[in-house]
């Protein structure tokens, strides 16, 4: 009898997982799904598989999903300029370049993080998962031509939207670099 109840519950939960729109709720329901699946394995004389399913399906996989979602929400920009384009006055960021980046990241619901660093370059070597920094964009200034240069990775699809947004500004240039493509 309890087995039939479990079968019905697992069907209901699978339908909830498919229909649910919020991604965090989906992960929690996925964890519940794995737990019930482990019970079903146990009822069907496979306690070994049930143990592995409890440990992996309901603990480790949701953890991987949650960590990767929280990682996706950050957009790191390294700024080498500190003038009208982007500047920090008394801890508050302002400038018209900052306004563009803010609008760009808010359209994708990302958190914008700007770091002021004058000596940063994309790593050219293959460092794989051991690389220390995940920088999405670098802001530089070409003093001779008075042009602001935004450097990003060509593999990032988000840059197409930024390209469309800065088309009306003459003094902003978007460069798509090949670097770090081996990590994707």
């Amino acid at each position, binding site marked *: 009898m309890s087995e039939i109840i479990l079968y019905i519950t697992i069907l209901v939960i699978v339908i909830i997982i498919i229909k649910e729109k919020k991604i965090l709720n989906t992960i929690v329901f996925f964890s519940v799904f794995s737990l019930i699946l482990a019970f079903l394995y146990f009822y069907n004389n496979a*306690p070994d598989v049930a143990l592995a399913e409890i*440990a992996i399906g309901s603990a*480790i996989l949701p953890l991987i999903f949650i960590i990767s979602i929280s990682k996706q929400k950050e957009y790191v920009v390294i700024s080498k300029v500190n003038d009208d384009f982007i500047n920090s006055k008394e801890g508050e960021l302002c400038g018209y370049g900052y306004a563009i980046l803010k609008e760009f990241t808010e359209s994708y619901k990302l958190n914008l993080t700007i770091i002021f660093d004058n000596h940063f370059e994309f790593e050219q070597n293959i460092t794989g998962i051991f690389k220390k920094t995940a920088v999405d964009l670098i802001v530089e200034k070409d003093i001779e031509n008075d042009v602001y240069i935004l450097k990003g990775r060509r593999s990032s699809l988000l840059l197409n939207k930024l390209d469309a947004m800065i088309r009306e500004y003459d003094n902003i240039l978007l460069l798509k670099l090949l670097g770090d493509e081996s990590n994707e």
Partner: protein
Amino acid sequence: MKNSEIIETVCSILYPLMLLFGFYIIIFGDRSPGGGFQGGVVLATAFLSTLFIKHYNETNVKILTKFEKYLFVTILIISSLSLITRGQILTNFFPLDYHENIRRYFLVSINLLIGLKVASGLTLIFSLFVEEGK
């Protein structure tokens, strides 16, 4: 990342129990459901729960990497011991006419080593995954 007090307290209470359960699954793996891999995953969840409370440091990763490599070599050596005692590779190193309670020690030792290797490997993958890009 700042953790709440509830998570810290609950994790520190559950930590020894999770360790006990993991080692139980590993050591009784030849008699009851479980084994090296399942127990190792339970151990890894126990280690990970403390890893997120405490602040992570890089020496941890280096020690774990070395530990995992040595464990792998030890597994190979122990499973090759049967070449000396019985003339075959990758089997029990006790002769077959020994009592079951003595032959069991081969399985227990292999399970223990596999469990520790799985635990250290999963902890390593996770800590690298969390720290990547920060």
